[in-house]
């Protein structure tokens, strides 16, 4: 590869920076706006006077949210879901990716199993069969319904298997020479060399678990079992005012006025924002660089 650093002329460089900065601002603005809304007074928010700075600063919305048992409870369910679901996702991904990354000589039915898993990515049974399977297996209304149906993210398996394959064979052969079996090769050779991809996949599954709301709404039989995003979906989606009667309006205003909604959204963002910095440094790291010479 040609390792020439292209030096852009000053003007083009500036243009690049400006465009990238603008895109960055576009991404940051909704978050800043939400934060500003959550600290503004309800009337300022309702009359649209809040942009990126709180108007008539107040922490009322946060007090209201943090005293709301439904919010706290669903927050706990989401935390549990990530703590149980993400490690399980990773464990199964690793255990499936390893055999699929072997050569056909080592694992003769590899292609069959590869297609077996891949098929579920290409074709989905549809909503009703999905629901029926979960119902027949007795998972409806159970916490595990949020974990088990998606426990094996096949797309992640493909990524990890490919990553395993790209690790030089020589390392495994050297380990095998020293008497390592499959388990040792997987856990002591391959995994330590795969930190970047593992970190990335962990982030994927964590975010996926944290953000999914649809399965909670459909699979749980009562709102007190909703994970956080399902709960948020019920309060954040603007009701169609034509469907509401005047009886509902006032109550709805109390619970889902814009400032409390913003506060809830922001609190829900925090855990995932905290995860990023810890995993990010692995994204760019080339861990296996230098393990092989020549």
């Amino acid at each position, binding site marked *: 590869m040609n390792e020439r650093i292209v030096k852009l002329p000053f003007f083009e460089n500036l243009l690049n920076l400006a465009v990238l900065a603008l895109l960055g601002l576009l991404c940051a603005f909704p978050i800043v706006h939400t934060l500003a809304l959550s600290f503004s*007074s*309800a*009337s300022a928010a*309702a*009359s*649209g*006077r809040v942009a990126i700075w709180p108007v*008539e600063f107040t922490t009322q919305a946060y007090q209201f949210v943090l005293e709301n048992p*439904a919010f706290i409870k669903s927050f706990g369910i989401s935390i549990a879901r990530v703590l149980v679901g993400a490690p399980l996702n990773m464990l199964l991904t690793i255990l499936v990716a390893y055999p699929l990354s072997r050569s056909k000589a080592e694992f003769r039915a590899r292609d069959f199993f590869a297609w077996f898993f891949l098929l579920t990515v290409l074709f989905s049974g549809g*909503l*009703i069969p999905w*629901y*029926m399977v979960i*119902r027949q297996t007795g998972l409806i*209304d159970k916490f595990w319904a949020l974990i088990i149906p998606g426990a094996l993210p096949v797309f992640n398996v493909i990524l990890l298997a490919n990553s395993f394959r790209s690790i030089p064979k020589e390392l495994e052969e050297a380990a095998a020479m020293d008497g390592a079996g499959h388990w040792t090769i997987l856990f002591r050779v391959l995994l330590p060399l795969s930190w970047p991809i593992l970190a990335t996949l962990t982030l994927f599954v964590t975010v996926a678990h944290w953000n999914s709301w649809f399965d909670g*709404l*459909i699979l*749980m*039989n*009562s*709102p007190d079992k*909703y994970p956080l995003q*399902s*709960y948020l*979906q*019920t*309060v954040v*989606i*603007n009701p169609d*005012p*034509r*469907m*509401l*009667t*005047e*009886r*509902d*309006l*006032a*109550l*709805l*205003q*109390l*619970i*889902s006025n814009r400032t409390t909604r913003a506060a809830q959204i922001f609190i829900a963002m925090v855990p995932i924002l905290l995860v990023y910095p810890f995993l990010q440094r692995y994204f760019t790291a080339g861990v296996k660089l230098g393990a092989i010479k020549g």
Partner: protein
Amino acid sequence: MNPLTGKVYVNRFIAVLLLTMLLLSCARPPSPTPPPGASTDDAFAKLSLVVPDRYDPPIEMSSVMAVDATIKFLGENDIHNNVWTRAYEQLLGIKVSYKWVVDGSMYAQKLGLSVNSGDIPDMFRVSPAQLHLFQEAGLLADLTDVYEAVASPKTRDVLMQDPTSLKAGTIAGRLWGIPLTDAAVASASLLWIRQDWMDKLGIAAPTSMADVLEISRRFITEDPDGNNAPDTIGLCVTKSVWSAFANLSGFFNGYHAYPGIWYERNGALVYGSVQPEMRDALLALQEMYAQGQLDREFGVKDSNQVAETIAQGKCGMEFGVWWNPYHPLNQSQANYPHAFWSAFPIPSVDDVPAKSQYSSAVGAFLVVRNGYEHPEALLRMVNFWSDNILGSQDDELRQTFLGDIENPDVVLYKYTPVVLWEPNAMIDGSKKLREALAKKDPSGLDLDTQWRYRIIQAYFEQGTLEAWVEVATNGPNGAVTILEQVLKDRGQLNRFYGVPTVTMAEKMPTLQPMEEEVITKIIMGEPIAMFDQFVENWYRLGGTEIVNEVNLWAEQNP
């Protein structure tokens, strides 16, 4: 906290308090009563309830529930054990159990999944489309005979007040669903105007659409909010003809055009959006837009954003339903404490009085699973509701079953799917209230109406600013008096209340956005010839079939 913030906060607090107390339609006397959580046989025994029959031994009934984020429970209560489940079990001998409880936004989908996977509750709520779908699939019980045998006189009265509602639950001459009724006329639009602006500029009540245009012009040119900036909007609209506030249909009604509904013309049903009367109204709106009397960006604003404009105190007029003062018009007080609105009948463009369009309020039905042993149990539950709750003057009964004023956010009737409202109740209650105001004598009113009475008195005697909300709706010359006119001879009822016909289901999803787009574009300055083109396209792209189907339907449902 600066003084303004404090004031705003107090205003909001009072407004919220007013609203919640008002909307719960219930009141509690100051004497201490046991909390609703303690309801037992004794609690029911104290009440004088009409309970004709009781299953002995009790029967089981499975159902499902839609709730929203505002539902709350006191003490040990939850959705499976509350005043309503206890009443059904102890008084009617019906043990109701909910297979699942889901947020209202997902109800239709979850019900579809549940029913499709063979898990059908004994009694449940369906949308009009689901009623037809499930009935065709043979999943529903025929309720015709049990209705005839079991429905109480009061139940029949409630279901008959709006004659279309029972018909909507009838397919091929048999009754399959009990309609969840509400007042149809509540969807009729009125003209709401910032009264404080009118007073300031010395404007009289509008008597014609020409007056409306003139008021709109003066609202943007004469700086009604007194901030020396041309930042006001004459008429607030969204691009939707349907919205509950800031809709376009009210304006069109002033020109005898009725977009989006079906009405009789020369002996046949026609679709309002493609009638020639739309032209003049569109031209008038176009002129208003050109002169800056409408929001420049109305085409991209939804009703929540218009509510923001109203809260900013920039709106002068809007067409909307009777309860608009509760939301969003009350918000204009957030920044202008002296802001208040008045309702006016929709004026006419000519000598013929204008009619407000409105549609049936039945959006859902209660049905029973085909094969359930006790289809009449549903009717008994409906009877229990209509005989005891509707029109009840017994405050203790109301607070037991509906909610009490000490916990205004705990709405007890949200715990049961069997909730019907009396179409005429709002109008009747308001009439009694006005009679009492005229006599200055609140005796004989139920506590809730007495409470409204005191609010209106506070407005006239002490000048309580927030009370205008109640005055503008239920007061003398309030919005409800206009609804009475609408019911009498100033209304245009949507004659089509069936489920979408075949072609309608197929074509309306494309025709409706087209209609909205054409209306928006013409208002924003496209030549009016575009409307003629639209009418032609509408008929060509399926409209002709839809008109035929609707008229065929009308013959079968006179």
